């Protein structure tokens, strides 16, 4: 069992124009930097990207937006960048905004063979338009559908050739959920380790969910809001 590929270029083999991708990360935290760069380089276009956010102008998914490679974003919170705003307001970019918890649950459901579930989030709002409403325990809920993707691209801290992954801190976020929901899941990791080095009890994403893995290079790990306190 060896899922290691040489690099991001090899990892994104098979990703084509008009495909649907999931990309892990929250803000710029835990995003697959290497694969995003490779997608930019290969200039794959017409992409539908499922990702909680859309990066900033010059980093993360913003890089794909700059080159107009994205046709549609499915996200919970966007617009930290001007190009996104311009494309959205001009109608070039299709944007589907969905509640963050529903996004997380829909990815998890997609990877779990649960095609749909009821959630209270969004009832009575425009998010509920066209969706089935049903009351449970005296409370209204709406029916949300699972999400899957042609490729899911995630970023982890450590991984092995079986595809087992461990994340660090809040860089975990959507990564394990999207890893479950890709028809093909690509994991880029900061460090490839030998099988057995990761304690089976501490593996966050079991290797079965991952088809390709590689050790990324030159991680910038940019901080979006650097907040500090002063030593007193």
């Amino acid at each position, binding site marked *: 069992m060896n899922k290691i590929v040489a690099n991001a270029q090899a990892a994104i083999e098979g990703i084509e124009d008009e495909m649907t991708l999931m990309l892990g990360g929250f803000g710029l935290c835990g995003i697959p930097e290497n694969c995003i760069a490779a997608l930019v380089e290969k200039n794959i276009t017409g992409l539908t990207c499922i990702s909680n956010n859309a990066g900033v102008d010059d980093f993360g998914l913003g890089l794909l937006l700059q080159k107009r490679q994205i046709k549609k974003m499915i996200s919970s919170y966007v617009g930290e960048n001007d190009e996104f705003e311009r494309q959205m307001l001009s109608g070039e970019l299709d944007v589907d905004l969905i509640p*963050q*918890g*529903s996004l997380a649950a829909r990815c998890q459901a997609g990877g779990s063979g649960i095609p749909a579930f009821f959630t209270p*989030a969004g*009832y009575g709002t425009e998010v509920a338009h066209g969706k089935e409403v049903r009351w449970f325990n005296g409370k209204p809920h709406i029916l949300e559908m699972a999400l899957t993707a042609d490729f899911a691209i995630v970023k982890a*801290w450590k991984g092995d050739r079986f595809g087992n992954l461990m994340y660090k*801190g*809040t860089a975990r*976020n959507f990564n394990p959920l999207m890893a479950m929901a890709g028809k093909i899941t690509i994991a880029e990791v900061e460090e490839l380790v030998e099988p057995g080095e990761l304690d089976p009890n501490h593996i966050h994403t079991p290797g079965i969910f991952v088809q390709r893995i590689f050790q990324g290079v030159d991680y910038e790990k940019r901080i979006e809001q650097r907040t500090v306190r002063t030593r007193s």
Partner: protein
Amino acid sequence: MLDKNGIAKRIAKELQDGWYVNLGIGIPTLIANYIPQGISVEFQSENGILGMGPFPFEGEEDADLINAGKQTITAMKGASIFDSATSFAMIRGQHINLTVLGAMEVADNGDIANWKIPGRMVKGMGGAMDLVASAENIIVAMMHTNKRGQSKLLRQCTLPLTGTRCVKKVVTNLAVMDITPNGFKLLERAPGVSVEDIQNATEGRLIVEGDIPEMEV
């Protein structure tokens, strides 16, 4: 009249020992600075951490440790980290004791609008819709009126809703109010603010019963 810190300080008095609390961006974030003595609460951030601590000291920022506002944070002893699905399981499953968030408008039936202004760039609801649809105990922290002096406490929201009949309490620069079946029930006045001031600044139904005490902050 309270400033933003005053609002945060007043809401902090609602905290109870052992509570799990989710604080939204803006005024709510300030509440963490005013936790009453002898009380221990844990802060959850919906991107996936429980036991969020203060900002790191300069030079100790970790790109892999941020809150839902994308700010660098620290983790307290006893913190735990989890994926976003588990995080919203905590929220949707009503394991969070208190949610505090800002709002553009609150209606006197508990409806809230805080995510979208038609015609303006829409950034998205983030976790707000999950939070308001699920939380049993939601306090809105906001200024009583908007920049044009218009009341943000309305008979009915005019902006697209974030959630319906969900807000339990509102704390503004002018007042503390519970939301009841008959509207905003005035509980406390901010220092130096009269009942009449509050009535003038409130478009929704305001219930004033008996003597309204000035709040202690």
